């Protein structure tokens, strides 16, 4: 009889671990060779070239993609090799009969596989990454990518191990691993998109908020961010990925302990994975269909339900290897449809579980607002505001938007919104808006996107289209506040102080003029002097400078760096230019980039009269509408100008150069008639037209009635200082 053996010689994790390394020695060698070739072998000539040509530009590791790709592929395949024995009845007889506990068997294989996977990758990737960073002045990024991708590899590896433990065949393991990687993030995306279809203010992406939090557990999320993003990721994502790895391996161990050896060859050793995976696929497919067929109304719901049920039916039939459990399949499908319907019904009834009505009224650390109307950016979310007054303003606007939710949502169906609105402050009712049939990009309605950062670190984001500007008056105050102005120039100031202007190879400078955006590249030194001028003007704006007609910008300036590689490591700087920004305006003139406005300001009014065409009909008080012909070569163009003397009802909010129409594109003439005005037509030259337009602005807001110049249906408000001049020239509207 064999002597009794002490248990210390048995059941060693090391035995299983060594056995794993021994069995997959060939895989390890092949993998290491691929990494070695795609890493150091290809890096060597680059290093040699760098050293030979006196440290010229370093092109990086051209085969880096292959290097990482090989590792990621093995992350998915290796568990299939390590744990394939649990799906083979003959193999199970050997492994589970061995004098090793299930725990040791599991961890020995897991750790052995992780060693095979990570050891060569890190041993080769880290030195290559260090070399690339050194030769590329710290901008290459390969070293950080190695670490992030190693984490992603572990996440893929651990989820595949978990799937293998749950499944009974290789086929199911591969399929449900794929489902876990793809269906999970797609489910989040589909549900999120479908909720966004009917949720007021929805601003959730798969990169933020609850969807972003949920998606960050998926291994693919980290890898996509690293590979297709900026090469780095947040600590939160790292923690979540670590949680995924830990949970997958820990629960994998628990299930492996309980796994019945006789389940080898069955579709699933544990059925919950099937239900989770199949329901994810079914719901994703169904909800995805609802997004594709959203024009079909009620039919969309039926199609989506059918598609979802069909997907589940197919997966369950494959699982059962036939139709042996059709009744159970049908019941589960029906239950799934009912559950999804209840979810969306509840979401609809509760405003997506309170999402629509939620306005963070306390605990806000900072807020960033992107406020666009037409092509104007009145507030940029690049500038994060922490001032309590500005936060309060944003909250005030947000609450007003939520309070007027129904009117805003119904806006597409009703003409005129003013009467439906609860205005933020009395006095702005006089602002009247046209029917705007777009999505808020024209006719002055704006798009407001708000992102709050709370004191506890959470972020809350909302996005609203078609927001009437009557609700947004506090945002003007925020835009004109000292904090916001400081934020605008603080980046520039820091860039100057940090010498960022020396890092770019050149800067692209763009200027918005009446004839469109003008752009050109300028050298670092020139850009720096422009930035100095901009900073001086920004700093000189008074703290009490508020929204009033004089604050109409006359142009907008953008400055952004161009690196030789095309990559921009610094943000662009933009600034609206106002008449008071003398430093910037003078700089423009000195460098030959004069803003149109400056040219026309110096024009004399007498030029108009002397340049008038002989055939021009004199403007009389009874003829406010002006026709003019422009002779250009042999062709003649006809345009129409109308000048209105506005009353209280005719004060407009202007939005870029494409402005409101008084009653619509071509209907202003009938509006004139309704109001009792007479037509006035006069022939003037193009030069005269340009002079007229120089007295008006496309960026203007007025609290007082102003004259309006309408040219070819485009409306412009006359600057108050030129009202008298307009009347002197006879450009008046009379009844």
């Amino acid at each position, binding site marked *: *009889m*064999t002597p*009794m*053996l002490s248990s210390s*010689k*048995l059941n060693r994790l090391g035995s299983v671990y060594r*056995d794993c390394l021994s069995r997959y020695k060939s895989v390890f060698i092949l993998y290491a060779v691929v990494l070695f070739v795609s890493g150091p072998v290809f890096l060597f000539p680059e290093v040699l070239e760098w050293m030979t040509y006196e440290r010229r530009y370093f092109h990086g590791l051209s085969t880096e993609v292959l290097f990482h790709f090989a590792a990621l592929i093995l992350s998915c395949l290796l568990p299939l090799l390590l744990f394939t024995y649990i799906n083979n009845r003959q193999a199970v007889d050997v492994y589970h*009969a061995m*004098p090793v506990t299930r725990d040791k068997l599991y961890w020995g294989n897991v750790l052995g596989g992780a060693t095979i996977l990570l050891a060569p990758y890190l041993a080769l990737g880290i030195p290559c990454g260090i070399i690339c960073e050194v030769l590329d002045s710290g901008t290459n990024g390969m070293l950080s990518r190695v670490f992030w991708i190693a984490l992603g590899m572990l996440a893929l590896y651990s989820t595949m191990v978990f799937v293998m433990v749950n499944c009974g065949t290789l086929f199911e393991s591969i399929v449900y691993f794929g489902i876990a990687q793809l269906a999970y993030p797609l489910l989040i995306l589909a549900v999120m998109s479908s909720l966004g279809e009917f949720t007021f203010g929805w601003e959730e992406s798969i990169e933020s908020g609850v969807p972003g939090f949920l998606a960050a557990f998926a291994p693919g999320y980290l890898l996509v961010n690293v590979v297709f993003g900026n090469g780095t990721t947040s600590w939160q994502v790292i923690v979540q990925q670590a949680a995924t790895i830990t949970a997958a391996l820990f629960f994998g161990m628990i299930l492996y302990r309980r796994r*019945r050896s006789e389940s080898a060859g069955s579709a699933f050793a544990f059925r919950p994975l099937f239900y989770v995976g199949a329901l994810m696929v079914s719901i994703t497919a169904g909800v995805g269909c609802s997004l594709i067929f959203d024009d079909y109304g009620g039919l969309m719901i039926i199609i989506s339900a059918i598609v979802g049920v069909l997907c589940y039916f197919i997966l369950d039939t494959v699982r059962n290897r036939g139709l042996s459990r059709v009744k159970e399949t049908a019941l589960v499908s029906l239950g799934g449809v009912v559950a999804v319907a209840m979810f969306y019904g509840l979401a609809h009834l509760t405003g997506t579980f309170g999402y629509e009505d939620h306005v963070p009224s306390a605990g806000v650390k900072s807020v960033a607002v992107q406020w666009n109307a037409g092509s104007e950016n009145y507030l940029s979310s690049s500038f994060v505001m922490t001032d309590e007054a500005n936060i309060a303003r944003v909250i005030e606007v947000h609450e007003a938007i939520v309070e007027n939710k129904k009117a805003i949502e119904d806006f597409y169906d009703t003409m005129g919104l003013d009467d439906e609105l609860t205005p933020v402050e009395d006095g702005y009712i006089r602002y009247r808006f046209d029917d705007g049939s777009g999505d808020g990009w024209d006719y002055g309605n704006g798009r407001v996107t708000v992102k709050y950062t709370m004191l506890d670190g959470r972020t809350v984001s909302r996005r609203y289209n078609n927001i009437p500007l009557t609700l947004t008056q506090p945002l003007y105050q925020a835009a004109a506040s000292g904090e916001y102005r400081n934020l605008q120039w603080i980046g520039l100031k820091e860039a100057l102080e940090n010498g960022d202007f020396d890092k770019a190879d050149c800067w692209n400078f763009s200027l918005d003029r009446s004839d469109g955006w003008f752009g050109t590249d300028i050298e670092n030194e020139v850009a720096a002097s422009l930035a100095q001028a901009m900073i001086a003007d920004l700093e000189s704006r008074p703290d009490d400078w508020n929204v009033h007609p004089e604050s109409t910008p006359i142009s907008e300036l953008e400055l952004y760096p161009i690196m030789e590689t095309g990559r921009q490591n610094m943000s662009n700087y933009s600034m609206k230019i106002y008449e008071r920004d003398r430093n910037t305006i003078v700089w423009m003139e000195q460098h030959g980039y004069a803003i149109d406005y400056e040219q026309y300001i110096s024009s004399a009014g007498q030029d108009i009269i002397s340049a008038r065409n002989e055939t021009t009909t004199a403007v009389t008080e009874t003829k406010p509408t002006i026709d003019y012909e422009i002779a250009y070569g042999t062709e003649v163009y006809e345009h129409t100008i109308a000048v209105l003397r506005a009353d209280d009802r005719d004060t407009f909010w202007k939005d870029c150069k494409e402005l409101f129409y008084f009653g619509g594109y071509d209907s202003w003439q009938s509006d004139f008639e309704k109001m009792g005005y007479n037509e006035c037509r006069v022939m003037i030259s193009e030069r005269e037209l340009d002079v007229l337009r120089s007295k008006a602005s496309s960026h203007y807001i007025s609290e007082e009635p102003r004259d309006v110049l309408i040219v070819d249906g485009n409306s412009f408000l006359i600057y108050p200082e030129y009202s008298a001049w307009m009347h002197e020239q006879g450009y008046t509207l009379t009844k």
Partner: protein
Amino acid sequence: MILCQELTKYFDETKALDGICVSIQKASIYGLVGSNGAGKSTLMRIIAGILQQDSGLVTVDDMPVWEDPLQKSRVFLVADEPYFVPQATLESMAAFYGRFYPAFDRGLYERLCDAFSLPRRKRIATFSKGMKRQAAFLLGMAAKPDYLMLDECFDGLDPVKRQVVRKVLSDTVAEREMTVIISSHNLRELDEICDTVGILHKGKLLYSKDLDDLKGEVHKLQAVFLSPVTEEELKNSLEVMAMERHGKFWTLIVRGDMSSVEEALAQYEPAAVEAYPLTLEEVFLYEMEVKGYDANVIFQ
């Protein structure tokens, strides 16, 4: 000693083992026979700690096997379809088992390799069916378990190798009191080697007895009755398992003590009664026939 008490095992809704109670003594060769799907392999796998029973108790020397590495190191199962690590040779499999079974005897392994004339460095995947069985057997023997279970170990072996296997088993049982459980459909082989036999049918253990005792309980008789005798009369007097009649010549398979049988037959004044020894195979066939597992019943 291996002890199973009220052992029950289900595979989904199928009851593979139904309240098995069996005791397998140390240093014996136990033959496990049964119809296809009777539960022989299932029982062996439970004893080896591969499967876990749904109810009942399985102990080896009074200790349960499940998840006990020490107990498992003393039990080795050579399955009916032996498994080898992919691309493995005998040498690599020996290293594999040597890593996990502390008692693995390298010397015994090499002697057995020579005895079976198996190449040690050739891939096992290239072996024939019989060679694979020999490889599995010798690796199991080299692990030096206290309890060796062989599932269909003679299948595919040539007569000489069968003799080698029988000799190795007998010698080992005698030398170190190893206990062997053999499952086979080749009852003639078992007849020659087993001490005790258990007969399984549809998950139930019909008998577990010493082989001689088992054979001693079932008798094949040929009798001649001069006076008329009916089948009913004979069935009423004796525990008849099977019966054939050709005129006055009766062939009876009866269960019971021989003296009691003779006494029962005497009342019919047989002209002659001859008793013939039964092989294990015959005993098995007749036992199965009683249970309705008969070729004439299965295929008519």
